[in-house]
């Protein structure tokens, strides 16, 4: 039985104060195991990104507990949370957030640089990460010289290069055509299956449903449903 890489218990997050106070998350329970790819779906404003931010140690929950690779995140300061992020988490952002002034290779190396890995080995690791996402041949190009699909691959390489146990992806296929979206999801799926990472993907995109082990649906800050994904079914089959 694979172990839990992330567990969120009874998470409540209240945003704002006074009359403008909003309960963005309301008693959310969620856990992910290594090797599992989970899709988090729901209408806009239902709290998906807030949940992603809480799980990603960027927002502290108002109530509840998050345990990341066995570490409790509550009561940690900003620097300790940053340390957890760099050690256990990889992020894939909707708009990639690559550094336009750095080459693809340097963008990937950056994840290692913030972890003080600056040896030649770090460059080798970064090149390997680019190879995994099939973009090693464009390592020296700058983001603006890459297509959107290629940029997203570089962003994924950046998220996996540090050996993060958990990948959090926010709408990774939103700006991609169907072929590129499929290709990106194949990569994320490989990360889960071949590299035993936990992968949580926030999405609106029904095209990627076949890649999911589980699909969690949210509404109004709550988890309202959970179903087995096709990937799970296929593997059973």
């Amino acid at each position: 039985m694979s172990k839990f890489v992330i567990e969120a218990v009874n998470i409540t997050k209240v945003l704002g104060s006074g009359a403008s106070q909003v309960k963005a998350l309301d008693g959310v329970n969620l856990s992910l195991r290594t090797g599992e790819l989970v899709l988090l779906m729901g209408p806009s404003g239902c709290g998906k990104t807030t949940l992603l931010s809480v799980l990603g140690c960027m927002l502290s929950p108002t109530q509840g507990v998050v345990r990341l690779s066995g570490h409790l995140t509550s009561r940690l300061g900003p620097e300790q949370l940053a340390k957890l992020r760099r050690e256990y988490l990889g992020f894939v952002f909707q708009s990639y957030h690559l550094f336009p002034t750095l080459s693809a290779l340097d963008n990937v190396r950056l994840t290692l640089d913030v972890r003080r890995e600056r040896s030649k080995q770090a460059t080798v690791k970064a090149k390997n990460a680019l190879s995994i996402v099939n973009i090693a041949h464009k390592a020296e190009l700058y983001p603006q010289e890459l297509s959107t699909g290629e940029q997203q691959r570089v962003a994924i390489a950046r998220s996996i290069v540090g050996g993060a146990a958990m990948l959090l992806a926010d709408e990774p296929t939103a700006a991609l055509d169907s072929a590129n979206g499929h290709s990106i999801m194949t990569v994320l799926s490989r990360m889960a299956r071949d590299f035993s990472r936990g992968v949580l993907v926030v999405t609106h995109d029904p095209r990627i449903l076949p890649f999911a082990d589980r699909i969690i649906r949210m509404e109004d800050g709550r988890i309202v449903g959970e179903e087995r994904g096709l990937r799970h079914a296929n593997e059973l089959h």
Partner: protein
Amino acid sequence: MSLSFKLALRNLLHDRLRLIATIVGIVFSIVLVTVQVGVFVSFQRMATTMIDHASADLWVVPLGTKTFEDTTLLDDRIRLRALSVDGIAGAVPLVIGSAPWRLPNGGTTPIFVVGSDLKAAGLHPWNIVEGSLEMLEAGNAAAVDQLYFKRLGVSQLGDSGEIRGQKARVTLITKGIRSFMMPYVFTSLETARSYVGIEPAKATFFLLHLAPEADVENVRREVRAAISDAEVLIPDEFRSRSRNFWLFETGAGGALFIGVLLGVIVGTVIVAQTLYSSTKEHFSEFATLRAIGASSRYIYKVIIFQALISAVIGFSLATCVSLIIVKVTTDTPLPIVLTPLTILALFLLTVSMCVLSAISSIVQVMKIDPVVAFAR
């Protein structure tokens, strides 16, 4: 090259116009500061140049003398009393005083007459380019500096002017003996007394020479005891008094200090403004760095690197401009003096200024919420 340094450098080069604005700001500021400091050093040297070039172990000066240019007189009896002290080998009178120099074309300009016994070790002109000390012993002979030819209406040996109705013929020419008040004109002791209009038994200072093996402090104590109506100073004390008077009591130093302060403020504000706008433009990148786990220190390092790169480029260009200014002013009455120590101090000032400028950017970055990376 470290990646944080690379990122800082690329961030700067990414917007060349802003980089140019930053560099211009630093260059402007540092050149302004360099000129002020250069004038200060020049002023400081000029304030003590006569004391530096006089041959004296001790100076006997009128009570309350603040500077070499103080023209209160001492009686020759003081010199004799000083000479009676054990350990004093010689006491040389020195006469100084201001006087009007009448130009050949009729106008007048104030000068500072300096006269001492040319056969004794006193205060003689140095950096001689034409003529000789012997030629200065002739009656009404005067030594002038090339820098003041135009002001004195002379241009070569043999030219003459008039001091208090007496002829003054140029028999010696020096190079680089500057004064921030009026040109120095060297002459013999007797001629100086005559030009300044003082009695033969009077002098402005007495330069004391010690016998070999004599201890300066012991002798000074004894000379002080022998002459209560004058002060006895070692050259360093006199230098310090003169420097303090001209730089601080006259307000000249304050004015220069304000110039330096203005330069630093202008530079800091310009660099802070451009760094701040650069940080703002790269805000989402800093948020991404924070999101992928960069520590605050890592992000500060990127900003500080940006400030330091700007400082190094700006300082290098400012030094080039300053060296040109130094070269251009070398042969003027007020040269800008740039010493290695000044250059080092200016470099440290530039770095401090740029790092200080980074504070506003760092304060801004401290507020970055990594969750912004998801929101954009």
